[in-house]
């Protein structure tokens, strides 16, 4: 597929945010990106025209019931079949922050045995409440995730988080079993660490929410559905970093660009 023919669907609903930044990130790489309200998608039923789908960040439906739950169940009820066809066709889906919560609540992640009827994980309330800060992430994925295949394994990336419910957990009795599955299937993508790449081991503020195993982002077994709590679109340009003026070496882009670039290059090569 030619880069200019790539068309990304950025979903919008009351309470979503950073859709404009996400659109700009894709467009800076030469792809098209439409911000589409979910009601419009339900009316047009044209999801399949898009090369990839993005659930952006925010606080959809006021984070009522649980963050991401209402949007997830709503979209399954209205567009479940379209979404299933999209996933089965191997078309990539990205969930950023609230989008990650939606993917987990919808059973699209971790989706060990395919899309699950009920969530297999949860993004619970942070141990220290709402947190908005820059964090370091270590890339753990071997080569499965289409959103990070251009990032070398072990690379440390810097991105901001801004959430109150981002503590990734598995059912207590299944922690070991599910963690092993994440490793066996190459589904682990980002873990919180310090600037030197040492794992946070649950310590604050490196692990900002108390996530199990310092998990910040995972993909499905196929590597086509990816969710993460940090915001790559808020780290697309170098100057989005709060301390960029004091950096010794000036660059044009920040680490978040790698996520968008990986996807666009993947779609381009996929044909």
């Amino acid at each position, binding site marked *: 597929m030619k880069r200019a023919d790539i068309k990304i669907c950025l979903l919008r609903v009351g309470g979503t945010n950073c859709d404009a930044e996400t659109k700009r990130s894709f467009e800076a790489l030469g792809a098209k990106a439409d911000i589409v309200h979910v009601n419009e998608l339900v009316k047009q039923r044209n999801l399949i025209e898009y090369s990839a789908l993005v659930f952006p960040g925010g606080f959809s439906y006021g984070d009522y019931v649980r963050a991401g*739950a209402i949007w997830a169940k709503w979209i399954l009820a209205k567009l479940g079949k379209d979404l299933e066809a999209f996933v089965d066709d191997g078309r990539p889906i990205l969930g950023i922050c609230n989008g990650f919560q939606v993917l987990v609540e919808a059973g699209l992640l971790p989706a060990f045995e395919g899309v699950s009827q009920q*969530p*297999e994980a949860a993004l619970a309330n942070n141990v220290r409440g709402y947190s908005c800060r820059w964090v370091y992430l270590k890339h753990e994925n071997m080569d499965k995730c289409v959103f990070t295949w251009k990032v070398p394994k072990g690379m440390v990336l810097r991105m901001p988080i801004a959430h109150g419910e981002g503590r990734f957990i598995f059912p*207590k009795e299944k922690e070991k079993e599910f963690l092993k599955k994440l490793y066996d299937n190459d589904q682990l993508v980002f873990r919180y660490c310090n600037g030197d790449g040492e794992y946070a081991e649950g310590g604050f503020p490196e692990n900002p929410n*108390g996530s199990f195993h310092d998990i910040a982002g995972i993909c499905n077994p196929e590597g086509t559905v990816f969710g993460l709590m940090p915001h790559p679109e808020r780290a697309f340009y170098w100057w989005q970093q709060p301390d960029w003026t004091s950096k010794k070496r000036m660059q044009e882009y920040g680490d978040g660009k790698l996520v968008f670039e990986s996807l666009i290059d993947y779609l381009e090569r996929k044909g």
Partner: protein
Amino acid sequence: MKYRLKIHVSLKLGHSDPEGETTARLLRELGYKVENVSVGKVYRVLLEADTTKEAERKAEEMCKRLLANPTKDDYAIVVEETK
């Protein structure tokens, strides 16, 4: 017939409960000998159903489909007939 449902969703034991822990700390500061606080949510639902059994089944379904995430939540349902 209309039924009143009281659906109580609470955190499963073993998961940390930051809201409960913070509340417990303050209650202790206020002088109470509080050992533990667990925070949950109550949904009061007015539901149309033919029988109590059907109302219970629907409430259970609501928990599974939306109100509780089995990874972290337990739930308890009380069904009352309205007069």
